[in-house]
Every structure is written in structure tokens, then in C-alpha cells.
């Protein structure tokens, strides 16, 4: 009689009856059942921070939207993933991401292979609903292979998590707070001088936008191997 045992719980997503294990999140169960929930900062194999709020869903009886990637399932809950209210909120979140930095696709290396761009196409976001802040950050191109351009960063922290959890170096972290935060290496040193960076390039692979990219390649050649991390974790048998 082990009470800690994983139990099976059933609930509904968009009116469809689904079941999942009690330690699963709404997002995982939705994926298992082929229900699409848009995500941005979530990457299968990495820990979950719930920072982008792209995966918000409505749960009946709750006043505010809940991020599906970090919410555990409960027996009998009624989840709606695409109500007009949720859609509007997602558009607003995306608009704010666009307005914060310089996300001009025509001059970006990741054009055509950008999760932010894909997301706005998916949500049919034609223009930003908030005015642009036009912030300017310095680009760090000191590393021999890679470039860090904070102007394209959406602070999803995938690069930080992959460096910490998969590579084990934790060479990156967030500097400052609020609107001025950006990704740094070590003590805000140039990338090339970072002692903990192993130049493995995993951060570049997982970057959803053109904030971290390889040097000396054209826009056409950019291939982000985002799936590689999920494969790595699977092969390690974690």
C-alpha cells in the first residue's frame, strides 16, 4: 500500500477525455494525445521554467491562465487550450516579446528558421500590438565560432539550462533584471575569455531566435539542431 505511487488521472482537454499519470504536466499529456499547445521556452529534456507564458491554458474554476508546461494534472479538471481569451493573451505576450528588442526578420540570420517568427505565423500575428522600445545592446562577437547578439534575445533561458544541465558548465546566466537583463558569460566577460565555456555550441543549437548563431554562415545555411538535446537526454537514459 504505497501512497506515493503514481496514479492515473483523467480529465478533459478541449472537451476530449484524456488520462495521464499524476506526475505529468498538462503539456505532456496534451502532447501524448496529439493536442497542440504552442511553446517557446519549453524544450523536451530540459528543466521547465515557465517564463515565456506561451503555453497558457484556461482551467475551469481558475481566474487566471495557467502555464501548461509547469502545471501538474488534476483529476476532473477541464482545460481549454484555444479559447478566444487565451488566443488574445498569447498574441499580447508575443507582441511584447517583439517590442522589447530588435526583432527585424529581414536583417536577421535566423530568418526562416526562427521559433519566434514561426510562432507569430502560427498565431497569425500581423503586427505588434505594443510600440517598439528600440533598445540597443552591444553584440559580443569575440568567440571564434559563435556570436551573442542580445538584441535578438527573448530571454527564454534555454541556453542557460542546456549549458547547466546537459553540458554541466553553467557558463551562461542572466545579468540584471527587467528590461535590461541579458545573457552573459561568466562575469560579463567577452565570450572568448570565458573560462567555463567549453565551446560545445549547444546553446547555439537550442537558441530559438538569432541571438546565438554561428559565425561565417549565411542566412540560407542556418540550421538549428534543436532536436539534438532531446536525443542526447534520451540516449543518456535520464
Amino acid at each position: 500500500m504505497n501512497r506515493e505511487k503514481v496514479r492515473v488521472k483523467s480529465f478533459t482537454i478541449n472537451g476530449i477525455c484524456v488520462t495521464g499519470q499524476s506526475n505529468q504536466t498538462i503539456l505532456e499529456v496534451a502532447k501524448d494525445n496529439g493536442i497542440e499547445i504552442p511553446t517557446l521556452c519549453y524544450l523536451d529534456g530540459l528543466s521547465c521554467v515557465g517564463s515565456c507564458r506561451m503555453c497558457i491554458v484556461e482551467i475551469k474554476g481558475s481566474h487566471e491562465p495557467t502555464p501548461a508546461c509547469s502545471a501538474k494534472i488534476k483529476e476532473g479538471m477541464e482545460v481549454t487550450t484555444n479559447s478566444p481569451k487565451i488566443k488574445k493573451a498569447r498574441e499580447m505576450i508575443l507582441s511584447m516579446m517583439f517590442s522589447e528588442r530588435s526583432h527585424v526578420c529581414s536583417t536577421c540570420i535566423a530568418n526562416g528558421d526562427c521559433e519566434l517568427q514561426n510562432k507569430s505565423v502560427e498565431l497569425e500575428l500581423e503586427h505588434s500590438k505594443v510600440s517598439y522600445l528600440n533598445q540597443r545592446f552591444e553584440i559580443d562577437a569575440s568567440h571564434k565560432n559563435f556570436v551573442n547578439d542580445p538584441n535578438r534575445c527573448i530571454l527564454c533561458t534555454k541556453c542557460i539550462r542546456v549549458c547547466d544541465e546537459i553540458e554541466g558548465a553553467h557558463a551562461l546566466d542572466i545579468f540584471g533584471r527587467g528590461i535590461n537583463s541579458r545573457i552573459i558569460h561568466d562575469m560579463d566577460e567577452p565570450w572568448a575569455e570565458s573560462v567555463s565555456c567549453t565551446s560545445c555550441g549547444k546553446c547555439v543549437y537550442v537558441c530559438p531566435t538569432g541571438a546565438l548563431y554561428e559565425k561565417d554562415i549565411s542566412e540560407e545555411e542556418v540550421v538549428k539542431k534543436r532536436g539534438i538535446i532531446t536525443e542526447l537526454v534520451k540516449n543518456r537514459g535520464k
Partner: protein
Amino acid sequence: MLDTIDDRYKTLEKSIKKLGYEKNTLIEVLHNAQETFGYLGIDTLKFIAKRLKLPYSKVYGVATFYNYFRLKPKGRHNIVVCLGTACYIKGSNKILETIERRYGIKADETTSDGALSILTARCFGSCSLAPVIVCDEQIKGNVSLENPLCEIEEKIK
């Protein structure tokens, strides 16, 4: 080696030891370090990171997240401009601008000769005196917008 000559590093080492070299005491250690050194220099932060076995970037990230921690030495004098609601309505942003222009530095910066730091704060609880500035721990109320530094200027050297 800095940490063998400098007594301040010994003091810091002692306080880290007292906290048991635990990773989750980072903020406490940063507090102690700032008390000992007056600010958190890069060398100090690296020292703390090594002692607590934490990544450099994490220590730096935490130190820059909190407004309380200073990464640069404080000036000999400091002026704190209140940007709370009451002071702001009475034009404290203009006062800040005037002071910034006068000394050629921005808020949270120190002049190159180390004479003055300009800081900002949200409300000192003296809203009836708005707009308020605090100069070297002395509060000054009803500051004039045109010439906020009339009496203080000669002190700052």
C-alpha cells in the same frame, strides 16, 4: 595572491566558513562581502564563487539582480534622488536630470574622481517635503527644480 595579503578576504573567508560553505547561502555571503569591502568587485565575486563552488555566471547574475548590491566602489559623497510618486509628480525626474548633467554621469554611477555617486530611490517616507533628495544621509526637502544643488555643490570635492 590577493586573498593571502588582504585581511578583508580573511574576514570574508571566516563568514563563509560560519555559513558552512553552503551553496544556498550565496546572498548572505554577498551581503557580508559588501559590508566588508563596501562594494562587490569582480575579484571578490570570483573568490566567493570558488569558495561556494558556484559557477561565475550564477554569482554575477545574483549580484546584478538585486539593487542593493553595488559592483563599483561608492563615491566619497552620495546624492540619492527620490523617484517615488509624490516626488515624481513634483518633478524629481528633472532634478535627477539636472544633477546628471552637472556631473556628467547617470544614476547609479560614480564620477571618475570618486567624489560623487548619484543614486535613486523609491520613497523615503517624507512625501510632505516632496521633492526630496538625500545628500550624504542628510535629507533635503522642497528642492528647487532649477538649482537643486545650491548648498551642496561646494561640499562635493
